[in-house]
């Protein structure tokens, strides 16, 4: 079963992928957040595995990662929390996002096995180079039926985009512009649109989700004009800051984007 493929077949437009950091705001929010985000209408769930030095992330996700680590989150705790999640959330694709070092220390094969057993569908490791993926991990990912998701940026060359498109069977993560997660779009008018249209015109195999700098209903809807959907992370984390009812705050946030 490929839940990622299914969700894109069922719904061709306006898909919402939400990111949150496992163990934030408190250690045991992971499963309640998955449930409330799904019930509120999120189409895909991306769970961040916190790392001490998240290079591709802006200050909001960095701070949530630091807090999650202080709360005691780690890979073993996360996989224990995810046990049985598929009884409660059977259809919604779940992806794990994180950095290579914690995965390497856990053991890549162990990681794949535990992820597959928990019912995880896809993995995003921004600092895993394509060549290393192909040489060392592709076979392993296939064996455990895990799909890699790769990032594409405005500077990614067309032939490299084609290669990325060939290497996965999930979706393409279009980084909206230069910058880390949670930054505002500072590009001149038309630049971002031209980039999205250039990718659209390539007629790629995989559907596309646009991420980085998408944070509310307006930016979500604009992104959806150029792709099957969009990814929101930092804005959701901000909505969870300081709340004592994270699932309720998360549901309100999703509704504010989708209403």
């Amino acid at each position, binding site marked *: 079963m490929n839940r990622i493929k299914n969700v894109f077949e069922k719904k061709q437009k306006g898909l919402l992928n939400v990111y949150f950091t496992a163990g934030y705001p408190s250690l045991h929010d992971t499963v309640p957040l998955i449930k409330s985000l799904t019930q509120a209408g999120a189409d895909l769930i991306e769970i961040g595995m916190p790392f001490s030095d998240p290079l591709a992330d802006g200050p909001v996700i960095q701070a949530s990662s*630091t807090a999650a*680590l202080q709360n005691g989150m780690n890979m073993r705790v996360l996989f224990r929390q995810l046990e049985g999640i598929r009884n409660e959330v059977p259809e919604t694709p779940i992806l794990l996002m994180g950095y290579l070092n914690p995965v390497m220390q856990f053991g890549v094969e162990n990681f794949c096995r535990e992820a597959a057993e928990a019912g995880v569908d896809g993995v995003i490791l*921004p*600092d895993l*180079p394509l060549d290393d993926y192909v040489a060392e991990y592709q076979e392993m990912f296939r064996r455990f039926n895990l799909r890699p998701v790769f990032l*594409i*940026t405005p500077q990614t060359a067309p032939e490299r985009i084609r290669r990325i498109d060939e290497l996965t069977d999930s979706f393409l993560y279009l980084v909206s512009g*230069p910058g880390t997660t949670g930054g505002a779009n500072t590009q001149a008018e038309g630049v971002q649109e031209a980039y999205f249209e250039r990718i659209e015109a390539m007629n790629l195999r995989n559907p596309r989700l646009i991420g980085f700098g998408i944070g509310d209903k307006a930016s979500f809807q604009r992104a959806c004009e150029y792709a099957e959907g969009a990814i929101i992370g930092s804005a959701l984390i901000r909505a969870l800051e300081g709340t004592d009812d994270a699932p309720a705050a998360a549901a309100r946030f999703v509704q504010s984007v989708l209403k």
Partner: protein
Amino acid sequence: MPTTYQQPTERGYYGQFGGAFIPEMLYPNVEELRQQYLDILADPAFQQEYQQLLRDYVGRPTPLFEAKRLSEKYNTRVYLKREDLCHTGAHKVNNTVGQILLAKRLGKTRIIAETGAGQHGVATATVCALMGMQCIVYMGEIDMERQKPNVYRMRLLGAEVRAAMSGSRTLKDATNEAIRDWISNPVDTHYIIGSVVGPHPYPDLVARLQAVISEEMRKQLLEKTGSELPNYVVACVGGGSNAAGAFYHFLEEPSVKLVAVEAAGHGVNSGHSAATSVLGKPGIIHGSRTLLMQDEDGQITEPYSLSAGLDYPGIGPLHAYLADSGRARFISIEDEDALKAVAELSRLEGIIPALETAHALAALGQLGAGPDDVVVVNLSGRGDKDLETYLKYADTIL
């Protein structure tokens, strides 16, 4: 001897260490650099400009000084490679002069850098002033406090110094912030990394630009001792750029013992240390697979050293390979012994070394060198920037 100590593989590996573990946002810049750096470095026009600046601006060749009183004390023949006499006061400028010329050839107009002790930041700000380029230096908030004179120097040179406020607020975090800046400015910006760290090709690029140190050593040793080859070369290692430069032309000479000196902080097992070769295991930091101080979950742990330039949880992949293969011996020196070595060199030879460099000097007693052995210590930097620290620890030092 394998020839791989000097030359990493095409994908940037020294043994199992190296590579380029970077997010897609950095790929075009790093790939452009990878494809062009060897051609640019080999270009005669580049070499002419680089060599001329090294001579007329940096002040190379730097002297190789026979330290007679220090030699007497340790009953061996100690020579000091005087990188502290380079313009800006440390070896760092060898690299920044080369990289700014490289950046110009790549068509970049904006320069970013990270700095720990501030020496690399000053060296970058200096060459940016020389070339009229915009310069932004990231520096940990704690390091800005303990290396104030260098912050003022960078500002005087026209650079903008941005405080890194995340994590341990030291060199690791300054490097994170510089990388994030590069992600946000992918077109016009070149990142001048200050050490033999980061994704391939940086470790090789910086090692090649620092290799002038050992190239000169060989000529000077021949003149002074009758042999190009010493018995020992000793250098301190944070990320490892001065050690890479001092070792480079001796890497394939098995008779030359290479000694890398790390900062033990309060003691290797005290929980407050930066002795990566002892405390680290293979992991990924700043785009490179190397020895890394980390917890069992792969989270990078915070190193400690009194010296801001050695306070880094990794080492360059070349050094990880030298440690792993046994080609270099690694020694770690505690804060207090480094401080004592500051006083010793000051009073025996009239040279006040940087706190980083003092770690290398403090290892002299542990080498086991005999009276006829030739020991070259790379005197990587001068101590002016550390006077405030030396004053604070005057009781230990004097």
